[in-house]
């Protein structure tokens, strides 16, 4: 059975400019020991999807439809208090900016034991022992739990964040751009660490990123989002080798290939549409060079193009340059 199953999730925000459809019918699932990558441009609803899972949406945001089933329980139907109590035990988050996600005036060890003691009935000594274990797991000297955040480097802070995410043995860890703002060497170390956690502890991982290069390193499956919708999903291998949706194709093309010619590829023209004022038909058609009349009128649905590979394009890969 799946660890997490998101079905037709719709999360809308109420703003002065009207309703913003940040997430509009997203479905995917994660199994234990599996890493799924959620990819897309800024503002396409990746983080909103993650925040919907942990119920940390801002006050004006609401899950209006769909279900988020974690371990057999529908999170959208649980009370706020219940959700809060089991949050770190079921799902934990590795935050985007580790530099700022630690309280600067509190020892890192205390910040980890805080998370442990909030959810487990452990004494302080036991919690400290657990924090030391976690530090060893993320390959930091266990004596350093007595240090303050400013005494760590950026990569080490990110490790501390990972240790914290592991504190209560969660079944699912959400990594919200876990390697952004780190240099490539540290990035590789963090990715190795995440791989190790996935394999040794059998946790599910949801990696949110806009960096395609890290997907291949760690993810088993990829979900590509555009303007609040899933445009393509499937196994990493399939998506890497066979881009069915034009957006995926363009996205991969805007990354230079180290084996190919040294030319700077043309970026995708224009910018993502405003989520409160979406174009009719396919949401990608204003920027799609293959768009036909059908794309301007009819909204495509996600269809299986080959085994376990879905795409939301009318032409299902039959477009060509």
């Amino acid at each position, binding site marked *: 059975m799946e660890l997490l199953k998101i079905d037709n999730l719709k999360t809308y925000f109420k703003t002065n400019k009207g309703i913003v459809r940040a997430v509009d019918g997203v479905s995917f699932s994660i199994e234990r020991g599996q890493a799924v990558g959620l990819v897309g441009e800024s503002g396409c609803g990746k983080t909103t999807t993650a925040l919907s899972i942990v119920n940390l949406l801002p006050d004006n945001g609401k899950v209006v439809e769909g279900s988020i089933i974690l371990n057999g329980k529908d999170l959208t139907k649980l009370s706020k208090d219940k959700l*809060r109590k089991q949050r770190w035990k079921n799902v934990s988050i590795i935050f985007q900016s580790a530099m700022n*996600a630690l*309280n600067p*005036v509190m020892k890192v*060890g205390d910040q980890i034991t805080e998370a442990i003691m*909030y959810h487990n009935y452990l004494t302080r000594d036991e919690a400290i022992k657990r924090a030391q274990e976690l530090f060893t797991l993320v390959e930091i000297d266990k004596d350093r739990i*007595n240090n303050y955040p400013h*005494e760590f480097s950026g990569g080490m802070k990110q490790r501390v964040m990972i240790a914290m995410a592991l504190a209560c043995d969660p079944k699912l860890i959400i990594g919200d751009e876990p390697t952004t703002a780190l240099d490539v060497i540290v990035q590789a170390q963090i990715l190795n660490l995440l791989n190790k956690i996935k394999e040794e502890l059998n946790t599910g991982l949801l990696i949110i990123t806009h960096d395609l290069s890290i997907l291949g390193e760690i993810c088993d499956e990829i979900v590509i989002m555009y303007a609040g919708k899933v445009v393509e999903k499937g196994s990493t291998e399939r998506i890497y080798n066979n881009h069915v949706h034009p957006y995926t194709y363009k996205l991969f093309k805007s990354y230079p290939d180290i084996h190919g010619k040294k030319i700077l590829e043309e970026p995708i023209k224009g910018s993502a549409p405003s989520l409160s004022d979406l174009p009719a038909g396919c949401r990608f058609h204003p920027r799609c060079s293959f768009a036909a009349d059908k794309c301007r009128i009819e909204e495509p649905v996600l269809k299986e193009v080959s085994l376990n590979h879905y795409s939301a394009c009318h032409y299902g890969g039959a477009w060509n340059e």
Partner: protein
Amino acid sequence: MKNSGHEMAYKRYKEFFNIFLHNKMAVTGAVILGVFIAIALIGPEVYPFDLQSFGTAKDVMNPPGTNHIFGTDDMGRDVLGNLIAGTRVSLLVGGLSTLISMIIGTVLGIYAGYFDNIFSMVIMRVTDFFLVIPWLPLMLVLTAILGTSIWNIIFVIGMTSWPGTARIVRAQTLSIKERPFIERIMSIGADTNHIMIKHILPNVFPLVFANTILVSAEAILSETTLSFLGLGDVSRSSWGMMLHYAFESGAASIGAYWYFLPPGICVVLLVLSFTFLGYALDEILNPKLKRR
């Protein structure tokens, strides 16, 4: 590369004291304040003084001499003894009223900054009210109504000096509550009280601390002012009361400098020491002003 936590902590304290000792303002302030605290603690035991021990006619308004190092006042009492006894009162009033003011200011400031509801709005309007009305008339009215015991004076000063702190704490809280680590703590499932006490308070504390010292200086001045205006506690010696009696007995016009200069200089020195310390600590603790 190996550096254990305790070594690091030790290094941090060492670094703080290094910066502190190289800051002339900080050292001057600390030395003056230290001397006053020592006088307040042991002075009255070493040099006893009784406010009721009036001298005979020949003891009145004696200039400094061998019997009385700082001379005598208009009732024949020893000025030095009175001054030493007054140190205790001044520091007590300064310390306790600052404590009251800090607690009120910090609690209200954090509440008003963290929550965005009707209560926080009311708190800030009350703060504005206290900031805008002139503090001296307010203090005069309050002491007149409550009576002039030392505890009432402490209460009145505490009640009138918190708005500045509340504003500063609120502003800092507004900035801190938007930082990512607060979101992270929320995601762990921490409740509001935990966030405010364990995470926001320690982050606003350096600011509160630096502000405390400046408010102490203000509180000591306020006590002196109230006493000088005749609203002091007549049963205790204090520098303000000395100045009050010196003024009433016309010490300045008959040239009895030994009567009004010592308490005046003491007030100035004590306030100066607090101000020095406050600015120096602000410079040391506030990373934006740090000179390295």
